Structures are given as C-alpha cells and as structure tokens.
C-alpha cells in the first residue's frame, strides 16, 4: 500500500519534472530511511551453547553484531575466517559478536560438536523456538545484523561482504559491508544501504 503510493507519487513527479535523477534520488533515500527507522531490535534473552545466558539489552558494547548460523552450512564455514578477522579487527573497540542458531534440528549437543569441529569462538545463541530469528526477519544463515545499542536500531542486515557466493569464492572482498556498518555505528551514523540479500543456507521457520 505504502509502496504503491510512493511509486505513484514518484511516477507523477517524474512525469511532471521529467528529470529522473533529481526526482528519484530523494524518494529512494526517504524509503530507505523509513525502512531503517522501522527496524528496532526488541530485547531478548537466550542461552548459548555453553548454557551462558545472554540478554541483548544488557551490554556495554558500542555495537552489537549478530550472525545467523546453522550446523553443516558451507557458507557459514566459508565466512568463518572473515568473521574471525572482523572480531579481531574490532577487539578492544567495544563490539560484541554473537551468533544465532534458529534451526529446529540443531540440538545444543550438535551445536557444541559443530563449534568444536570448526573452531567457532563465538557464543551461539540457541533460538530453539525461532522467536528471535523471526523477529529479525531472518531467512538464511550468514546474515549479519549490526545494531546500535544506544537506540537498538538495526544499522545493517546482510552479508558480511561480497567474497563468498554459492557458485564462487573471490580471493578478496570488494565490499566490506558489515565492517562499514560497524564503523558507521561506532561513529553514530547509518549506512547508505541497510539491507542486502544474503547468500546462505535457508533456515526452515515454522
């Protein structure tokens, strides 16, 4: 409904002005801003694979990063080195990194096995009833959600970077979207594109 009205307004404006660039730019920016403003993370409390309790809002961090995980997903395995690097790059800078497992199939024991086999050194929050994953609009693994704990706004929701896809792996990423979003959050800013489609393993939500 909202989108339709915006589109109609945009096309009307386009017809009247006939200046694509000038008219479209503000419309797009407004739509993006509305999307960001609508995304505020609710508080939640989940236990991790070591049975440690995590409450999202109980943090001193300046940025909180949540990464969706599922056992046996090749994409998660492929981005692990990049995630480890991200964690190391922001060590001591007040950035909290958490993983989120919303798979109905992965028991705590399974998650412990996966973490051990792949040396995953992140708390993996066990979203057993899928509530948290659903609230964030999670669809796949390897989605990176960057939040600003001052406002609990979601600054970014998308892939860590553009290095890994289903079909190929580049030697290096050309875009470091998650790192850019963390930088923006630490600087109290937003990012131009807050949501991107992630290539990851589909999580079966009920």
């Amino acid at each position, binding site marked *: 409904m909202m989108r339709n009205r915006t589109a109609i307004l945009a096309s009307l404006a386009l017809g009247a002005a006939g200046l694509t660039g000038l008219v479209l730019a503000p419309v797009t920016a407004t739509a993006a801003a509305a*999307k960001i403003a*609508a*995304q*505020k*993370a*609710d508080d939640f409390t989940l236990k991790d694979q070591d049975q440690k309790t995590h409450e999202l809002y109980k943090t001193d961090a300046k940025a909180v990063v949540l990464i969706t995980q*599922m056992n*046996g*997903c*090749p994409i998660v*395995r*492929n981005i692990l080195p990049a995630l480890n690097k991200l964690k190391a790059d922001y060590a001591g800078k007040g950035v909290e990194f958490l993983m989120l497992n919303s*798979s*109905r*199939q992965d028991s705590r024991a399974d998650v412990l*096995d996966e973490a051990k*086999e792949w040396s995953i050194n992140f708390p993996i929050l066990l979203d057993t*009833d899928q*509530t948290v994953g*659903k*609230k*964030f*609009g999670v669809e796949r693994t390897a989605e990176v959600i960057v939040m600003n704990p001052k406002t609990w706004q*979601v600054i970014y*929701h998308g892939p860590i970077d553009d290095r890994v896809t*289903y079909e190929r*792996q580049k030697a290096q990423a050309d875009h470091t979207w998650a790192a850019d979003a963390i930088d923006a959050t630490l600087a109290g800013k937003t990012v131009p594109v807050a949501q991107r489609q992630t290539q990851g*393993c*589909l*999580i*079966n939500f*009920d």
Partner: protein
Amino acid sequence: MAVAFAATAAFAAFEPLHYVEIGAPAPAFSAMGADGRRHALTDYPGKVVVLEWTSPACEFTARKYKSGVMQGLQKRAAKEGYVWLSVDTGAPGKPSYLTPAQAQARVAKLGAKVTGFLFDPDGRIGRAYGAKTTPSFFIVGKDGKLAYQGAIDDDWGGPGKKARNFVSEAFDDLAAGRPLRTPKTRPYGCEVNY
C-alpha cells in the same frame, strides 16, 4: 518491519529425529514414487539400497548435480546392481516440494539415474533415519543393516583441494565385502524441511 512481527501462537513441538546406529537394522518404509508406484525397503531384499536425501531448493545439492558427481555415483550404483532411491522430504507449500510430474522432469533434466524418486511429505522416512541435511546419504547393506550415513564427499566448497568421496569409498568397500573405512561422516548442505 521485521520487528513488528507479532509473537506467534504456540507451535507444535518439533518432533525429534531418530538416530540409527551403523549396523542396526535399517528402518522399514514404504513411499509413493514419482513413477506412481510405491517403493518399500522390503521390495529390495538382499540388495544394497542407497538413500539420497535431495531437495530441488538446495544450492549444495544443485552443485553436486551440476558437477556430475551425483550422476557419476548413480551410474556406478547401477553397474553394481544397487538400488538408488532419492528421497524428497517436503510437504506441499514448502520450497522442497515437487509434484510427481515436476520430480520426473527434474530427474530427466539432471540426467539422474535412479531406481525411484520418493516423496516423504510427512517426513516419516526422514525422521526414521534421522535425515537432517540435503545432500546426505544412508546406505543399507545387503544384510538390511545400515552401512553408511553422512555426506557425499568432503568437497563442501571450502578452500583447498578436496579428494574424498565417501559414498564412492563406501561402494568400494561394499563391493569388496569389507567393513566400511568411514561408516559415518557429518553431512553439509541445507536443512531437511520437516
């Protein structure tokens, strides 16, 4: 927008998956195939039966067909006289669901050589075997006992050269009549959609 999602009503508890030990009798099943026939494990006594969990919605299953690795194993299985049953666990409305006609078209398009393409819409076979992943394999030996469960190979798309095809190794060991060198591995890929 995502956060505006209302708390859902109580959902049905996830029915746990069974786990079948290697060497334990393979769970019996009977399911409708894309060919319009029912296929039961008891239809194939004294034969090696290869159960391939598959999904048309899984990128990692697609990779194995695209590279021809899966078809290569199917050819080998046929030569050995093994039964190959692809199993699609997915109800109507789920991404992995196929109609019989769609399943037949898929088998033809991929050049898959299978004894049957079975539908498991209620997840009964998947739960009985504990199938979690596509692609993944359960191989039933001639004695009706579970001989192998796990991944197709170690080539999950990570860096470095991968060399082991566990299913092919299982075929070698079964053909030679010796115990399997690796009867159990951890599969990789997509979640089976119960």
